[in-house]
C-alpha cells in the first residue's frame, strides 16, 4: 500500500488532502453558517454614510464627476447616497487589493501584544461575514499599522493628502505615493481615490467605538437638513 500507485494517489494524494480540507476548512464554514454573508449594501451604515457625504461636500467637483448629482427629493437622495456608497466601497476594496495595501496593513486586532490598547476592540468573527471580506483581508504583514479600526480616526482631508504623498503627514513613512488616485492635486481625488477613502473610513465603522479617537457628532448632509 505505502509504495503502490493506488495508495499514493488515493490515500496520500486525494485522501489526506480531503481530510485536511474537511478538518481545517469545512469545520469553520459549518461553525459560521449562522452568520450569513452580508451584501455590500447591507454593510453601508450611518458612520460610513457620514464620511461619504463628507466627501461629497469637501470635493464637490470630484464627487459629481465620479457619481453625478443626487436627486432633489431628500428621501430619494438618501437612497441614492446609500447606493453610491456601496458602489464606492466595492471599487475602494478593489483598489485596496490592486495596490497591495493588504500586504503592509493587516485587518485584525489580536488579543495579545497590547493590540487592543493600540487599536481598539479585538476582532470578532461576525465583523468579517460580508461580501467585502471575500476573500478576507486579514493580511500577514504590518509595515504600517492595522487598519481594521481606522475608519473615523482621521478626516478625509488627512487621507487625501496622505494617499497623495504620505510623508507630508507622516514624516519618514515608508509608504509609497499614490498620485494616480488624484487629478493632479490632493484636493482633486478621482473615482478611485474617493472610493479608497470611503473604504478606509468604512473599516471599523460597524463598531460602537467608532470613531475611536476623534470626537464627532453625526450630522446628516447639509442640504438634506435644509430641505427637511
Amino acid at each position, binding site marked *: 500500500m505505502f509504495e503502490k500507485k493506488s495508495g499514493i494517489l488515493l490515500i*496520500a*494524494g486525494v485522501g489526506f488532502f480531503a481530510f485536511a480540507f474537511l478538518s481545517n476548512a469545512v469545520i469553520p464554514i459549518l461553525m459560521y453558517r449562522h*452568520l450569513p454573508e452580508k451584501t455590500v449594501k447591507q454593510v453601508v451604515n450611518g458612520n460610513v454614510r457620514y464620511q461619504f457625504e463628507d466627501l461629497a461636500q469637501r470635493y464637490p467637483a470630484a464627487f459629481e464627476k465620479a457619481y453625478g448629482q443626487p436627486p432633489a427629493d431628500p428621501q430619494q437622495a438618501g437612497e441614492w447616497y446609500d447606493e453610491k456608497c456601496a458602489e464606492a466601497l466595492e471599487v475602494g476594496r478593489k483598489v485596496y*487589493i490592486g495596490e497591495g495595501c493588504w*500586504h503592509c496593513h493587516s485587518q485584525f486586532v489580536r488579543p495579545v501584544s497590547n493590540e487592543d490598547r*493600540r487599536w481598539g476592540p479585538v476582532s470578532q468573527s461576525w465583523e468579517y461575514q460580508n461580501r467585502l471580506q471575500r476573500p*478576507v483581508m486579514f493580511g*500577514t504583514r504590518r509595515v504600517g499599522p492595522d487598519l481594521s479600526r481606522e475608519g473615523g480616526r482621521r478626516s478625509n482631508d488627512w487621507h487625501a493628502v496622505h494617499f497623495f504623498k504620505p510623508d507630508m503627514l507622516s514624516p519618514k513613512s515608508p509608504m509609497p505615493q499614490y*498620485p494616480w488616485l488624484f487629478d493632479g492635486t490632493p484636493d482633486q481625488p478621482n473615482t478611485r481615490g474617493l472610493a479608497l477613502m470611503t473604504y478606509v473610513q468604512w473599516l471599523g465603522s460597524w463598531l460602537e467605538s467608532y470613531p475611536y479617537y476623534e470626537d464627532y457628532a453625526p450630522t446628516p448632509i447639509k442640504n438634506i437638513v435644509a430641505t427637511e
Partner: protein
Amino acid sequence: MTSSLTVSDAELPRHEDLVEERLVLWYFVAALTFMVISMTAGVLMGLQLIRHNPLPAIELFSPGRWRMVHTNAIAYGFIANAFLGIMHWIIPRLTLRPVLSRPLSYVIFGAWQFVVLATAVGILLGEAQGVEWGETPVWIDPLALVGLLLVAINFGAPIIQVRGPMYVTLWYYLAALVWTFLTYAMGNFVPEYFVCGSSAGAVGGLFIHDLVGLFVTPLGWGMMYYFVPILLKRPMWSHGLSLVGFWGLAFFYPLQGIHHFLYTPIPMFLQYGAVLSTIALELVVLTVIINFVGTLRGTGGEVLRNLPLRYFYTGIAFYFLTCLQCALQTTLTFQALIHFTDWVVGHAHMVMFGVFSMWQLGAMTYLVPRILKTDWYNPEWCEWHFWGSAGGLMLMSGDLILCGLFQGWSWAALQPWESSVQVSIPFWSVRIVAGLVMFAVQLLFIYNFFKTWQKSRAVAASV
C-alpha cells in the same frame, strides 16, 4: 532503481528517446528570466522601504504592485518553471518512458509562460486577486488550472505505467501532481467565490501553506531523492526512513494551514490543531534529514568538493533550520511577538530561496553542462554563484529574523508606530545589500549559462 540495474544496457531505451533536452533548457531560461524580474521587483520594494525608491509616484512602478510580482514571479515563474524542466529530465529517466506527448510538452511550456506573464501584467495593471500567493487575476485562474491538469496528465502517464514498486522520487511526484492541482483550485476558487470572512481566512491559510507543502516541497524532495544517490553513487541510507518521511509529510503537512492566522477569529481549537501538527511535522522532517545525512556516511568530503552536491546539502541544512524555526515560531507564545513582523519575511526567504531555489540552482549547475555536452564556461563563476547565493541568503534571512524581534517588541511596548519603522531602517538597509549580492551572482550565473551555450555551439560546429 534496483530492478533497472539487473536489466542489461542493451534493453534500456536511449536517453535521447526519453528526455527532450531542449525543453529542459528552455524551462531553465524561462525560470532564470522570471528570477531576474522577481529580484528586480524585490529590489524596488526594498528601496521603497528605506525611502530611496528611484521611481516614485509612477503607477506602473508602484512598489505595492511590484511586491506581488516579486512573490508570484518567484513561485510560478522561477520555481515552477525550474521544477518542470527538472521533471522533464528525471521522470522519463526514472520510469524509462517518455512523457505522454512531446508536442503537448511544448504546448504546456508556452501556456505556462503565458500564465505567468499574464499574471505579472495583470498585477501591474492593478487587477490582482485578494489571495496571498494567488494574486493571479481571477480570469487567468481557470487557464492556469487547465495547464496544471495537462502537466499532471503529461507526467502522470509514464509514472502510472511503471510496473511493480516505485522509487521514492515517484511517490513524491505522483502525489504532488494531484496536490498541486487540488491546492490551486481550492485556494483560488473557494475564498473568492464561496466563503467569506474567517472561513475564507482558514482556506487562505491552507492555500498559502499547501502551496509550499504540497507543491514545492514534494517536488523538491522528489528531486533530492533522485540526484543525491546518483551524485554519491550509492543508495539512500534507509528506505524505511524514506517511507516515514513521505507519509509523515503527506499526512501532517496539509493540516497546518491555520497556523498562518493564529489569534484571528478562526476557532481556537482549530488553531491548536494546526500548531500541534506543525510541531509533529518537525519530527518527520528530522527523519528525512537523518536519512540524507546518513547517506553521506563514509563519502569523505565529497559533499564539499562536488558543487551540485554542496548546493543540495546547503539546501537541506536550511531546510532543517526553517523547519526547526517553524516548530518554534508556530507556538502561540512566539506568534504573539513575531507575527506580522519581518521575522516571517526572513523565514519565507530562507524556505523559498535557501532551500528550494538553492536545490534548483544546484540541479541547473549539474544539468546544464550535461545537456550542452561541454563544461561550464567558467567553473569559478559557479563557485561565486554558490557563495553569493548562500551567503547573501544567510545574511538576508538572519537580518530580517532579527529585525522581526525588534519590530515585535516595539509594538508590544506601545511605542509610537514610527519607532518600529525607524528601528527597521538599518535592517532593511542590510537586506538591500544582501539582496543585491544575491541578484548580482544570479546575473553572473545567467551570463555563464549564456557563454556556455555559445561555447557548446562552437564545439558542436567544430566536430
